[in-house]
Structures are given as structure tokens and as C-alpha cells.
């Protein structure tokens, strides 16, 4: 595959690994958080940590859209499907997220809920057009990457007068989550989670640009390198982070310059600003309630807001009390530190959300890396 294979080349990887090995300073430990699930997945799937020196540790961050979705939000979607008779359209990854009463969207489907997997918001719009007598709700989740398509769908529905379409908006914001981690006592006060820098998101940054990270670099003195989701991108970013740490710099650097600019995609940003506004607070799985960390649909588009249309109320539901997803999402614990990991919590029967998506830290480690714990 042109433009893909080039970024997965094993020979180049060896060279980069040698450069990283030669650049790390003896006796110094490096700890970097890859914010995004996409990076977590790449690191596990390509066995990237095998190529890194033992003094470079990657900490998995909370940037997996499925993992940070709190139980209460999935409950709302299930309620819509089972009790309001709507056609609920959702991205595939969301189907298996565990919710209350042992349910998930997948299990709600088996109980008669009309729940359909879609690849894009356009599919959801089409379903609404094809079923004018039914209410069709799009379960809108994800970071800045998936927000513009939801905005476009809502604008399109308005333009067409598609009165049976609405969205259950659960879109969240990357910068707020990064601040939350940097402000957490584990990082700031106690220093139990050493963080020397961040690998910045790939797809999210194509939308928001690299500018929003400049604040973190400056305020918290942490280098950020924005990187693509291919394994060589990640290796290159690690090398750039090691150099910044060695030289005492804390800057935003852009490894993913083939897709990310400083300002990002202004058209997409305008579109999002037109349809959405900040939510005062939003509960994240793992980070708990984070102020101004998510979006809601503006009054102007209230007719397309499923929360208003169906008069839904959010109820917070605590995670399973032995589940360490929260600490894992903040980088405080590793998946294998959790008592449930690989015992009662497996990809077949996930207890916590990190075990659901292959971008989740637990599922990635279970599916790709657990042989390392055995030998």
C-alpha cells in the first residue's frame, strides 16, 4: 500500500531504534505518555516496545473514545433503543462497552433494541431518510476527530428538514483531558507518575492543529511531539522527545507535518463552533467530572438534540469497584496491575472499558502483549 508501507518499514525501524538507543543518556529514565488510543494500538500491534531501550517507558493515556465513555452515557443510549423505540445508530467499537444491569448495546440489540452499526454519520442520515416514520438517533461519541462529521450531519438534517433525526452528543475535548492529567496529584504533587513528555494525537490534531498544545508545553514544561498513527511516526516522535528532554527543551514539535498544521482545519472548527458549545461539565470514565471538557448541541439546533427531544437525564454510575480503568487511564497503573486483568476481565467479557476497544490499554496489552508477562 502506497503511503502506508513506507511508514511500517522494518529496516527504517531498526535505524531509528539504533538512533534512539544512541541518544538516550545512560542512567536516565524516560517516561512518555501517548495520549491517543491510536498510538497505543500501533505500539502494541507492531511490537514497538521491543525496539525501544529499557529506559524508555511508554505510558498509555486516556485518548480512547470508547474507554472514556462513562456507563451513564451508554445507559442513555440503551434507554433510547429499548424504551423509546428509536433506531440507534452507533460506531462499531461502542457496541460492546459494558453498561448497567449487565447490558451493552450489543446485548440490548439482542433484547429487541433496533441498534445499527454505521461507519459514518452519513449512513445514519440515510437510515433516517429511509425510515421517515421512525425516530433515528446517532450516538455521537469521540474526540475532535469525530465531532465535525456529527456537526455536518446535524446541519444537513436541518437543511433537508429531516425531522426524525437527532444526535446523542457525547463528544469530548482532548486539551481538557491533558490538563486534567497534568493537574492530577499523581503527576503534579506526588510525582508518582513521572511524565517527561507527550506524544500528541494524530487525527485530533489534523482538526485542532498544533497550537492548543503550546500551552501545555509552556505552562507545565512538558515537551509535546504530535505524531502520525503509523509505527515509524511513533518511533520518530520518541526520538524527538528524547532529544527535547536531553536538551532541557519543552516545545511543541510536529512529526505529523504531512497532515497537521499549526492552525488545523479551520473549516471543520467553524462547523463545530456553529453547532456545538461547551458543556459546563462532563463525566469521563477514569477522570471523573472534568469541567468544560465536552460539547453539547447549541440551542439553535435543539430540535436535533436527543437529550432534549427525549427528555433524557444523565445518571452517574460508578465503575465496578475492583476495576482499575480509572487509574490506568491516568497512567497511574498498568493493565497488569489490575486484579481483574485477564482473570474475570477479558476482551470476551470486559468489565472495564479499557478492555473493550483494541485501542484500550488493557485490550491492547491482553491481545498483543500478554506473553511478556508470562516468560
Amino acid at each position, binding site marked *: 500500500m502506497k503511503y502506508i508501507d513506507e511508514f*511500517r518499514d522494518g529496516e527504517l525501524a531498526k535505524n531509528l531504534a539504533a538512533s534512539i538507543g544512541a541518544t538516550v543518556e545512560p542512567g536516565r529514565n524516560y517516561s512518555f505518555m501517548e495520549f491517543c488510543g491510536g498510538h497505543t494500538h500501533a505500539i502494541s500491534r507492531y*511490537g514497538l516496545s521491543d525496539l525501544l531501550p529499557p529506559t524508555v517507558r511508554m505510558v498509555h493515556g486516556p485518548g480512547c473514545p470508547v474507554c472514556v465513555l462513562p456507563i451513564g452515557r451508554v445507559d442513555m443510549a440503551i434507554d433510547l433503543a429499548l424504551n423509546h423505540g428509536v433506531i440507534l445508530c452507533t460506531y462499531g467499537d461502542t457496541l460492546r462497552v459494558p453498561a448497567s444491569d449487565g447490558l451493552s448495546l450489543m446485548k440490548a440489540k439482542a433484547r429487541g433494541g433496533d441498534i445499527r452499526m454505521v461507519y459514518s454519520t452519513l449512513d445514519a442520515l440515510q437510515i433516517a431518510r429511509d425510515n421517515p416514520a421512525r425516530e433515528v438517533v446517532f450516538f455521537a461519541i469521540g474526540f475532535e476527530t469525530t465531532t465535525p462529521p456529527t456537526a455536518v450531519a446535524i446541519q444537513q438534517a436541518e437543511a433537508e428538514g429531516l425531522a426524525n433525526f437527532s444526535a446523542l452528543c457525547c463528544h469530548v475535548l482532548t486539551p481538557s483531558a491533558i490538563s486534567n492529567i497534568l493537574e492530577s496529584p499523581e503527576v503534579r504533587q506526588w510525582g508518582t507518575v513521572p511524565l517527561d513528555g507527550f506524544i500528541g494525537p494524530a487525527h485530533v490534531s489534523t482538526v485542532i492543529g498544533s497550537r492548543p498544545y503550546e500551552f501545555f508545553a509552556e505552562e507545565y514544561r512538558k515537551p509535546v511531539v504530535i505524531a502520525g498513527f503509523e509505527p515509524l511516526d511513533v518511533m520518530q516522535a520518541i526520538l524527538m522527545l528524547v532529544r527535547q528532554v536531553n536538551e532541557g527543551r519543552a516545545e511543541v514539535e510536529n512529526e505529523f507535518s504531512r497532515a497537521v498544521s499549526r492552525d488545523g482545519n479551520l473549516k471543520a472548527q467553524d462547523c463545530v463552533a456553529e453547532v456545538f458549545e461547551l458543556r459546563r461539565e462532563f463525566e469521563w470514565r477514569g477522570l471523573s467530572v472534568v469541567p468544560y471538557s465536552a460539547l453539547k448541541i447549541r440551542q439553535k439546533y435543539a430540535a436535533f438534540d436527543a437529550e432534549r427531544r427525549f427528555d433524557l437525564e444523565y445518571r452517574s454510575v460508578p465503575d465496578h469497584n475492583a476495576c482499575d480503568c480509572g487509574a490506568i487511564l491516568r497512567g497511574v497503573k498498568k493493565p497488569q496491575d489490575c486484579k481483574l486483568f485477564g482473570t474475570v476481565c477479558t476482551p470476551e467479557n470486559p468489565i472495564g472499558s479499557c478492555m473493550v*476497544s483494541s485501542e484500550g490499554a488493557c485490550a491492547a496489552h491482553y491481545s*498483543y502483549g500478554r506473553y511478556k508477562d508470562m516468560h
Partner: protein
Amino acid sequence: MAEMKRAYVRPLDLKQGRVDLTHGSGGRSMVQLISELFAKHLGNEYLGQGNDGAVLPAPTIHGHAGRLVMSTDCHVVSPLFFPGGDIGCLSVHGTVNDVAVMGATPLYLAAGFILEEGFPLSDLARIVESMARAAREAGVPVVTGDTKVVERGKGDGVFITTTGVGVLPDGLELGGSRARPGDAIIISGSLGDHGVAIMSKRENLSFDAPIESDTAALNGLIAAMLATGADLRCLRDPTRGGLAATLNEIAGQSGVGMMLHEKAIPVKPVVAAACEFLGLDPLYVANEGKLIAICASADAERVLAVMRAHPLGREAALIGEVIADDHHFVQLTTAFGGRRIVDWLAGDQLPRIC
């Protein structure tokens, strides 16, 4: 006395007609459907016996009595017609392959049809013709069958269950528990073609990929492999769950581990590209005309040569080896230079979000 006029029976309307409940009710319509469609295309001396069961000669192999191998497979594919095949030929290939990978020569098939009221007879005719062609090509006749019709909305057009019987020579033992550390793992060709061809035509997902299902009967290829006399331990066709599921199954049954080499695993560029943008892994995508062979490493080259000389094994490749591992992990050295597990699939493969 005037001879009784034979009642005129209007032939099945294979262009505009549809399956209705009478086709499954045991009356004339059912008999008509069977004779004008199933018997017409699938007919042979055994099916022609017209009884509740087919009387078959005792199976022999190389002139000796052999052991029977029996397998059954239900087919519920959607869409029913896809690039490179349809549910008809698939239902023949699937069961012929399940019998053949046991080392047996497939002899006979039984076919059960569950039809949904309202299903177009023209589509049913296409399916039956395709089935007949596949059975002829594989040399395995359909000798008995059954038809049921369910009300509209209670089926998905057509479901087909096929059962196959074959004969296995004495002394030949193939099975999932026979893999030993050091054995070679061979695949007969590129992975994921069938699954991607099907997905490319799914209603909510249609995209144009010039890719055809690999559905094919493998009994010819397998016969050629067995004829080499090589020390084959196990043959399997990696259908649902793909290569990953099949190898994990064998690793568990044999109590061994496996080490695969990503670079050696053949995947067509178009399949790799489709998997890339759908967020899928070709190692988990279904195949319908491929087989995995595990054999003694000393015989690997010989088996590969015979496979590559056969049209269905031209791209056969040695993709890894069986290793000792108490945890029965299937592992992979990535083309990137790292290592990872190739685990069982949890539920369906679902696309990632970003």
C-alpha cells in the same frame, strides 16, 4: 371410456415467481419445486431414488473398506450473491472442504434449504444452478435433501445446510492435536479475500474493491498433497475467524505455541487496503478456499512444491513454525521488527473509531 386428461400443471415461473408457503407444505407445489428446480439441476442416480433417504454403496478407498468422515455446515451468508460466488456454491465448497481436510475423499452431500416466503424463484434458481455446478466440479453429488418454507420476515431469503460424507483410508491420521514443536506452518494462498469480498457488498458498507471471494473446493489440492506421502499432521480451512482463530484452535488442541512471520503471510494489496480503512486485521478475516497445512519441517518444501503446482495453491507459502509453549500462544514477528500475540478474536471484529 375416454382416457383421463392429464391435469395441466403450470410450470414454475422462474422469472417472476416467488417462494410461497405452499412450497413448503408437502403438497403438489412442493413436489413441483423439487422436481423442476432441485432435481433438475442436482439430479443423479441417488437423488433420483426419490425416497426419504438415499441408499448408497458401502464406501471403499483404493479397493479397501475405509472409515467414514462426516461433517455438516450451515450457511447464512449475507448478501446471498457476492463477487466470486454465492450461497449455493459456498454451501458445497464449505462442506466438501470440511470433509477433505480430514484427509478423506468426499463422496456425497445432503442439502437442507430453509426458504423465506416471498423469495424470488429466479434467485433460488441461480443458487441451485451454482450449487449444481460446484458439486459437479468437486465430483461430489447431492444425494438427498429437504426444503422448508418459513413466513416472510422469519428468515433471510435462503439458509442452506449441507452435510458431507467421505471415506478415509486406514492409517491416515490428520487432526488438530497432532502439531509438534518444529513443524512447519503452510498456507495455500492469500488471506482475507472472501471476507473482504462479502463486506464490500454489505448494504451499509458498499465500496468498490476489485476483489472476489476465494470460495473453492479444496479436495483436489488436498488429494495431491496426500499423494506426496509427506508427514502431514493437520489440515484446516481457515473460515470464520480467519487464520488467527484456526491456529489458536490447533495450538490449544496440540498443547503447543506457534511463531508466525508477518512478512511471509500473503495478503493481496487490495485486501490489505480494504482492511486498513475498515480498521480490520486480515489475519481474522474469513477465507473459503484456503487451507492451512501443518507438516513435519523436513517435508515442508515437498508439500509446498506440490501445492504451488496446483491452481488453488499457486501462492502457497511457509508462514511460520510450531514451537513449544505451555501457554499455547500464537505469536507473530511483525514486519516492523517487534513481536506480538495473534489472539483469539473477541466477538465480531468491530471497526475502531479513529
